[in-house]
């Protein structure tokens, strides 16, 4: 009998049922961890900071410190400037940060708190303070944590660069977007690399890649250490690694920007901001997940640096191809439901398509109509190969929708965050946890999806989930269908042979079956 679902078709349409997204301030705070010596203060209610700290702490297994201006009723009615100023003062005393990211949450945005003006007045009160303040409007009623990530980066560039570029004697800049070829032969030119909300381990991979190609680069944001810290003799409560403010200032004079993101909302692109502010041309590539997109990144880096692709990476690619072949027949049984932020969904679906796993449900939690536009052709192509007629790509989905769609389109594999575990448990579906948030497993900070090795480790998990499911289910399934359902049921009354003696005579002696009849005689 069909279990009733929490959100049946056309029901609860005015409600978000089990959210597949978090809010913008979470993305802001995460990206801000990629800047050295930076702390975040939310201008708003105390709870926002605490919730987000808790949410991040269980995923990254790191202490997460985010301050709040702890607005009260009085502050909400008469304005919270005093609270915010005091909050900044206290944060300076407690942590001595070089940068403070000040984010307006829903509450501050709704009551119309003028962040730049308030920060300007704080500056006037503290003329000798050297801390860099970065104002980010981050109302939780718009977008999601995905957008918050890029909004912080854009706000940072817009705050830091105008002043910096005026002082820097830059080389003449190219204006065309597609300038990679013209810059290939020039050595020692700086490349800016903008990353989306990747795991610390994936960011670390990008760093290694840049070193391998001997590229002088500024990577933003770089939370590879701050959100995945090695054990040290003494604990440093200030996030003491990551992109430095000096590096950010130099981004304006770079030869080129590489932005590893796919589905940015208009106005949220840090690379576009860099071009607009300082005329740095940019290339936007998909995050390096799956063969095509990893190849594209390596080709770009090789082109930019004038260096050949290192032998080690070529060998990794070879192993990746070999693994694709080894796993292809198992993967052909895969019918995946993929959920998470827009870029995660996009990259993972593209990778699945290459492997012959049909993404029957691709659902991102925040509004993002371009997900479907960008993916539809390749999902259709792979679905047709395996005679799969029905599948869906959707946005603004919650887990109520995802559960219903996963059942409707017969998914046998869930790929996303640990928030899918309830569906996995209720319907006995395997869940591969590989994106934020991962709360019930260890190692969220070490999830690898970037590069041949990263993607391969993810594919192995997907294939093994399918294999395990098959291994543990094929005996009972086959027995149920062909034995229990028929052999254990009452048979039709057996029929006795009509003429037993004649029947016995008509039985021929056995003959070796592969010999021609004449030879047997």
């Amino acid at each position, binding site marked *: 009998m069909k279990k009733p679902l929490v959100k049946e078709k056309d029901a609860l349409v005015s409600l978000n049922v089990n959210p597949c997204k978090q809010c913008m301030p979470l993305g802001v705070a995460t990206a801000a961890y990629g800047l050295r010596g930076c702390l975040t203060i939310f201008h708003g*209610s105390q709870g926002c900071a605490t919730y987000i700290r808790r949410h991040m702490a269980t995923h990254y297994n790191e202490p997460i410190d985010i301050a*709040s201006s702890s607005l009260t009723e009085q502050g909400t009615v008469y304005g919270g400037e005093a609270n915010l100023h005091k909050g900044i003062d206290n944060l300076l005393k407690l942590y001595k940060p070089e940068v403070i990211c000040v984010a307006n949450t*829903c509450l501050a945005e709704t009551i119309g708190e003028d962040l730049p003006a308030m920060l300007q007045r704080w500056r006037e009160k503290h003329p000798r303070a050297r801390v860099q303040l970065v104002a980010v409007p981050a109302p939780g009623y718009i977008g999601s944590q995905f957008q918050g990530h890029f909004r912080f980066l854009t706000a940072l560039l817009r705050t830091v660069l105008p002043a910096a570029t005026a002082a820097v004697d830059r080389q003449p800049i190219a204006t065309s977007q597609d300038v990679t070829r013209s810059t290939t032969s020039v050595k020692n030119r700086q490349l800016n690399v903008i990353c989306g909300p990747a795991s610390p381990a994936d960011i670390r991979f990008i760093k290694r890649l840049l070193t391998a190609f001997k590229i002088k680069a500024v990577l933003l944001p770089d939370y590879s250490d701050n959100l995945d810290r090695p054990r040290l003799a003494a604990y440093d409560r200030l996030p003491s690694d990551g992109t430095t403010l000096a590096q950010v200032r130099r981004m304006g004079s770079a030869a080129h920007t590489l932005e590893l993101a796919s589905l940015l909302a208009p106005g949220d692109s840090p690379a576009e901001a860099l071009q607009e502010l300082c005329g740095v041309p940019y290339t936007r590539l998909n995050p390096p997940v799956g063969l095509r997109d990893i190849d594209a990144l390596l080709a770009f880096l090789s082109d930019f640096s004038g260096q050949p692709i290192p032998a080690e990476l070529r060998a990794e690619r070879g192993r990746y191809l070999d693994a694709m072949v080894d796993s292809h027949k198992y993967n052909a049984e895969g019918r995946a439901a993929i959920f998470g932020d827009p870029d995660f969904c996009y990259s993972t679906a593209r990778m699945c398509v290459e492997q012959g796993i049909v993404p029957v449900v691709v659902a991102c939690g925040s509004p993002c109509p371009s997900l479907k536009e960008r993916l539809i052709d390749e999902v259709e192509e792979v679905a047709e190969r395996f005679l799969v007629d029905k599948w869906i790509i959707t946005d603004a989905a919650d887990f109520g929708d995802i559960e219903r769609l996963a059942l409707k389109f017969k998914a046998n594999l869930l790929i996303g965050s640990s928030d899918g575990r309830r569906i996995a448990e209720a319907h006995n579906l395997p869940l591969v946890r590989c994106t934020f948030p991962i709360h019930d497993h260890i190692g969220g900070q070490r999830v690898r999806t970037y590069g041949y090795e990263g993607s391969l480790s993810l594919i192995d998990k997907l294939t093994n989930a399918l294999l395990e499911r098959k291994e543990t289910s094929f005996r009972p399934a086959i027995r149920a269908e062909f034995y229990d359902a028929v052999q254990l049921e009452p048979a039709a009354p057996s029929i006795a042979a009509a003429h037993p003696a004649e029947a016995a005579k008509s039985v021929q002696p056995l003959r070796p079956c592969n010999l021609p009849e004449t030879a047997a005689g």
Partner: protein
Amino acid sequence: MPAVILKERQASITRGGAGSGAGSGAGGGGCGLGGAAGTGQGQPSGAGIACEQASVAGSVSQRACVFCGARVVLNPITDAFHIVHGPIGCASYTWDIRGSMSSSGELYRHSFSTDMGETDVVFGGERKLARAIDEAVAAHHPPLIFVYATCIAGVIGDDVAAVCKAAEQRHQIRCIPVQAPGFSGHKAIGYRLAGDALMRLFGGQACPREKAHGINFLGDFNLAGEQWIIRNYLKELGIEVLTGITGDSRYETLMRAPQAALNIVQCAGSMHNLARRMHDELGIPWISVSFYGVEDTADSLLRLAEAYGGAQAAARARALCHRERERLAPVLKRYRRRLGGRRAAIYVGGGFKAISLIRQFRELGMETVMVGTQTGRPEDYEVIRSIVSPDCVVLDDANPAELERFMIEGGADILVGGVKERPLAYKLGVAFCDHNHERKHPLAGFVGVQNFAEEINASMNSPVWSYV
């Protein structure tokens, strides 16, 4: 660099050994707060510690907000439909917030939110909320709906009370507004709002006292089935529990609450106001209990048995406690050999748990060197200060810098706390015990004593500490 203690925070940090009350100079002055100017300022009278106050801006408080306080108290009601009216974050971060268990439905474990967007903020969210309630009734026929109005609903002036009232009339079910904008105070205010919401549900129907029977169990949320464990004890004593408030409760069980002869209150921080109102308005007396640790559990069972069931129940309680103590004694003896003489730090939500934990550590031969709470009351701190050593740091609404400093200064071997504190403890080389909403093994009752000792030992005596 040692962590700085903010000036505004000093009045909320003191040491043990008060007893006589009235500030007593044991505050900032006795703290050894090197590097921080101005000691002992703003010492309130009485408990000698500033508490129940708004968090200091920029201090990085470990507290959540008013909404969180209300939701954690009401969420364990298993057949209620809990709607968060606000932008998505409030719902996203509190989805399935407690590990409370249910003996029937699982509706409460879902997250329902109106997910307010920009247009709702501009044009108001009342109509969307009304539609959401209609849809909830059509799809799930809940007997009870709670609507939590968070910051934005509060500030744009959505009349959530009117929407709920109209829905009650339309659907003939209870639809109770919980106006809990985060800026309207701190977490403990949310506890009070939850209590008020329950009083509204009870509808002021006092039961004639001569007909009263059974008890209500306030302040247990059936985390890891803890309420079932205590109910089993009470069953053995012959005491009927009408309902948990709110662990494993349903609309139907809650509606029996006004008939109770007695309320037992475990988590006083979250339930004090409700217990007081049930006493004043429904005539139900209450006693405080705690089922954490051997001594507190035994003491609570005995007092309850005497207060409710008289001599016969008391005899049964003594027999039960004797049996369980006998069973535990050899187990605890083995653990004491591994744990005795070590130092504990405590940072938890409320005062009652902190008090029980101090005693529980003492039962294991361990000394408490730091103890703090997010929402302790003056009377909690008075008890805490009277049972810890004079060197023990006592603090209210602490931040990571203070926790770091006092754990290091006190030489803590283990911290008991919530999820956020765990990575900090580990970074400092301090073991950790998860005494929070998400625990997956019971820590209450006699069985909980063994689990607690096991968990302390598992972390504190792990071989990994010898390698790092």
